[in-house]
């Protein structure tokens, strides 16, 4: 069984830890913030859409304003 070959344990663990850390850094710095930004902006837009009668600008104005936040 190759799983029990202890000579391969070091190289497997080493590359696993290295690549997991790299993956974590990319996810933490790039992907999770990006998705969170989209979801938060959408929630904000929906909320402002519900109260659109109280907002002076038109709905399209709010939408372009929030969309520009995404960039």
């Amino acid at each position, binding site marked *: 069984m*190759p799983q029990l070959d202890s000579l391969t344990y070091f*190289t*497997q663990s080493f*590359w696993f830890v290295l690549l997991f850390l*790299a993956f974590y850094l990319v*996810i933490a710095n790039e992907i*999770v913030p990006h998705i969170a930004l989209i979801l938060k902006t959408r929630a904000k837009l929906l909320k402002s859409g519900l109260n659109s009668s109280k907002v002076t600008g038109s709905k399209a104005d709010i939408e372009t304003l*929030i*969309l520009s936040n995404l960039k």
Partner: protein
Amino acid sequence: MTTIFSPLEQYNINPILSLNLSFLDFVLPFDSLLLLGWVDFSFTNSSLAILLATTLFVFLARFSLASSSIVPTPWQSFFEMIYEFVHTIIEEQIGTKGFKYFTFIFTLFTFILSVNLLGMIPYSFTATSHIVVTFGLSMAVFIGATIVGFASHGLHFFHLLMPSGVPAPLLPLIITIEFVSYLTRGFSLGIRLAANMFAGHTLLKIIATFAWQMLTAGGLLSIAGLAPLALLFALIGLEIVIAFLQAYVFTVLTCSYLNDSINLH
């Protein structure tokens, strides 16, 4: 066709780029090289599988989120679904206190999922079928959860071993059982993932060999060989579900262990 390959052959670790300390043999005395012989930095097929799986996920996410908008594109929606899936797991298992660990749990889930799914491509390699890799994950979770427990509760964390309302004579027994079950967590988490991937891929290989042998036998056996081939297709579908399910189980159990550390039962 008489050669039948071992179903365990697919788990062999083959170096693609050999990197060990043998180049130091003219500097170091002979004995020290014998001692350091296990230190091997070779880039193997296991490393390549992990590299491919994580890179594919990152690039897919980047391309999908590059043209993100309020009304999601289909691929953007897919990544939002993964985000909300992990978010729901943490909310159900830990509560709002658990969102501190969101990034780690999201990484854990997507890492296991992409490595598992990459292994489903024929002729590729499943890094999570090796016990060392899954042990690395489960030990990190286990030690991390213990540190979180001691950091947030101090010595009160030992209350985890003592459920309330237990009669005093039973306490030594209960504490021993709880302590052993706490220690087993770190091992069972890793063994579950590796054993599931190992068993599934071995079964696929055995059925595939069987179907291949029957189909090449000629005559009526070739027609009968379509039955194991159909079974193989069904099992591949099952294996893809298991690849997802094991990533989910690993994530849920990680959250449940973190919940014990944060909320103490």
